[in-house]
């Protein structure tokens, strides 16, 4: 047990580890070109650099920076290069002594993990025979240095779903060596620190506002528990703590009612069912035209219709996921009718557009956009209320759009605009006009007429992009949003039918909305349109690149295999169409009935 020696070996270990992060990969089916061509092609298309390329038989091998890069590269399997479909493979990345240490620690983690109780037992580490044998936990100092490494490894293992951690019997005098626990498992529910030597509150302060879901804490046999402020301090540090040292300290029911809203966020509200389909039709068609040709929307507006935008330039907190902390509203500000910000009554009146011509002018003064109602329906939220006073209804849509081009008209150069000379005397620069993603809230007041609908009022808020409050983490989301289904393709089995132009019928019918170009795609993204019978789980689909999706679709339509078997076939054949079809023909007679579309 030569403790002092271990500190150095750990530094060396850390260095080697970063070297070791690189992963060896192999590329097949590249033979029709030079290795250099291949490397150029790959870095150009995949944006993943492969270093140290050498030819080994039919393979080109090399290294990528990290496991993540290697995994990303695998998604490009089947990409066409020099007349062949490339095939990538991850070669053994666990060679050498250092990666053996990583392997050892990984094995250790899994040995100490109980999947059933979701508990990671890191108790009494210095007595673990394996670790002692490797000399990794022979002293407290090395132990505290190894702990972050352990945590880092643990955070890279998605299979480790941890709700409870045991850190008892580790000779801890404070938690400075194990603070990283809060980064690795921020949602931890139970923590045991019993039988250590923790004596001061100060050291626990690093965990304040971390562990927001910590429900139970066990600190028995620590000097700190004798302090008379112990209980109140623990209550202060861990706001949702319910059980401290086996004693109930908070009423859990009361706690839940304080910290959660009684009403869960819903994505959709329709006052009646028929409003649902007609309003999704309306919104889908409206935004299609809004994105492609805004003049087509003109028939919806009468001489009394009103339109205005309002810029909410308030910055979302940085802790809002994906929030744009540097938004630019250059194209919108001169049109903004936010009466809480615009003080000039004259401007407020000018910025209200009444009647088709002024409204079209305003439309053309806004950047060109792309909404993603079809391909990312989860990121939109809608409420529809009836509006008896006008025998109509109100549609409110919350979501986001991408700005694709600058506006057709320059609102600033309009004669009615504010005087340019005064306004832009100082500090005006073009970064205010950067195109980016924006979030929005848009409310239409709709009046059905015999022939279609008219828009009585159209109010829009433009705000910095943020991820939406109603979006749940991917593993919880259910892929059946009404917007998607109302425009999803019909027909079964056959080749993918071109998306029908929706909205030609329906309760409120919107014939005036028919785009003049019937071929206008409803779904303008590069993601291939999948056959309706090819239903991939969203998490699988999100891991596939467009080429793979197209291959799956092709195989699915050719073989009539169901989604699961299509995927298996594609995977087994290395995402190569010909190989897959060959394999299919060989085994078609042995496949079970349920392998096919029912």
């Amino acid at each position, binding site marked *: 047990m030569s403790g002092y020696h271990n500190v150095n070996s750990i530094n060396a270990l850390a260095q080697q580890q970063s070297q070791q992060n690189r992963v060896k990969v192999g590329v097949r089916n590249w033979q029709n070109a030079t290795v250099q061509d291949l490397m150029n092609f790959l870095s150009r298309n995949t944006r993943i650099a492969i270093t140290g390329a050498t030819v080994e038989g039919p393979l080109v091998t090399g290294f990528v920076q990290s496991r993540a890069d290697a995994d990303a590269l695998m998604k490009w399997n089947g990409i066409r290069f020099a007349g062949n479909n490339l095939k990538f493979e991850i070669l053994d990345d666990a060679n050498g002594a250092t990666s053996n240490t990583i392997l050892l620690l990984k094995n250790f983690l899994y040995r100490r993990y109980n999947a059933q109780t979701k508990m990671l037992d890191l108790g009494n580490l210095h007595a673990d025979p394996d670790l002692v044998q490797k000399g990794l936990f022979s002293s407290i100092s090395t132990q505290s240095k190894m702990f972050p490494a352990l945590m880092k490894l643990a955070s890279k293992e998605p299979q480790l779903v941890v709700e409870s951690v045991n850190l008892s019997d580790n000779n801890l005098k404070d938690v400075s060596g194990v603070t990283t626990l809060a980064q690795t498992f921020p949602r931890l529910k139970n923590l045991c620190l019993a039988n250590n030597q923790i004596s001061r509150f100060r050291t626990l302060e690093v965990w304040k*506002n971390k562990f*927001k879901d910590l429900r139970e804490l066990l600190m028995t046999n620590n000097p700190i528990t004798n302090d008379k402020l112990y209980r*109140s301090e623990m209550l202060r540090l861990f*706001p*949702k703590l319910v059980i401290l040292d086996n004693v109930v*300290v*908070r*009423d859990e029911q*009361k706690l839940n009612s*304080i*910290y*959660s*809203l*009684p*009403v*869960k966020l819903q994505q959709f*509200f329709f006052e009646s069912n028929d409003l649902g389909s007609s309003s999704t039709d309306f919104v889908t068609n409206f935004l299609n035209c809004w994105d492609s040709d805004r003049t087509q929307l003109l028939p919806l507006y*009468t001489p*009394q219709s*009103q339109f*205005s935008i*309002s*810029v*909410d330039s*308030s910055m*979302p907190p940085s*802790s*809002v*996921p994906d929030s744009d902390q540097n938004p630019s509203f250059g194209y919108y500000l001169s049109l903004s009718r*936010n*009466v*809480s910000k615009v003080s000039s*009554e004259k401007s407020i009146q000018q910025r*209200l557009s009444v009647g088709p011509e002024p409204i079209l002018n305003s439309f053309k003064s806004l950047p060109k956009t792309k909404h993603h109602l079809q391909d990312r329906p989860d990121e939109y*939220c809608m*409420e529809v*209320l009836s509006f*008896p*006073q*006008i*025998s109509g209804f*109100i549609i*409110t849509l*919350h979501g986001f759009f991408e700005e694709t081009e600058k506006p057709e008209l320059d609102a600033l150069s309009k004669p009615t605009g504010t005087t340019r000379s005064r306004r832009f005397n100082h500090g005006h620069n073009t970064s205010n006009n950067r195109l980016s993603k924006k*979030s929005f*809230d848009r*409310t239409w*007041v709709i*009046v059905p007429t015999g022939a279609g609908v008219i828009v*009585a*009022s159209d*109010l829009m*808020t433009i*705000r910095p992009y*943020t*991820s*939406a*409050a*109603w979006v*749940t983490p991917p593993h919880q989301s259910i892929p059946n949003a009404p917007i998607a289904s109302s425009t999803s393709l019909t027909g079964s089995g056959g080749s993918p039918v071109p998306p029908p132009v929706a909205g030609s019928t329906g309760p409120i019918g919107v014939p005036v909305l028919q785009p003049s170009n019937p071929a206008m795609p409803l779904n303008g993204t590069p993601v291939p349109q999948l056959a309706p019978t090819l239903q991939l789980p969203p998490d699988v689909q999100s891991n596939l690149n467009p080429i793979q999706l197209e291959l799956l679709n092709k195989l699915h339509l050719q073989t009539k295999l169901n989604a699961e078997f299509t995927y298996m076939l594609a995977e087994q054949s290395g995402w190569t169409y010909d190989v897959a079809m060959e394999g299919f023909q060989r085994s078609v007679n042995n496949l079970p009935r349920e392998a096919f579309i029912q």
Partner: protein
Amino acid sequence: MSRYGGGNISNASGGNRSQIAELFVKKILAHLDDTDPQKLNQFLNLFNSNNCKVVFNATPFAQLPLFLQMWQNQIVQTQHALTAVDYHVIPGSQTVIFNVNCKVRFDESGKDKMGQDATVSPGEQKLQHQKHRPANRPLWGTYFGVSLQLVVEERLFSNDMNGVILAFNYNMIYKPDDSLITVN
């Protein structure tokens, strides 16, 4: 011409309309932030008693008092900050539609609107504790984003606020990671 109106948009009183509009929205937000249950009735008076739609986070409330009770009893103290207001007077309908954006943060001290928390304390310690505590100061968390649509009777602009609210649609649009309050 159109079914919804024959009236013209009057600019006559345009001057203070926007001010009234903004003040009215601020008044509603202030009511939401109020912790005094006695003042609930005053809030109730703003809503049309026969025919008012209330939607909160895309969930409808059959009756307004149910919503206000929930707000009073089951949601901790709030603080709203107005960020944007726009409105259109819908001609011929005698109504105004509002499009409002604001931010809201919640008291994360662990106490409800009545100042009660969830701790189960051995009596003596709690008494002592309360004596030294500053009187129920809220600990504001991080801001959430809110989008609010209102349908209001036009007589609002002649400063008549009795029962003017016909529809109230309140939805959270963004949420911070670091709040203790869970909305889903």
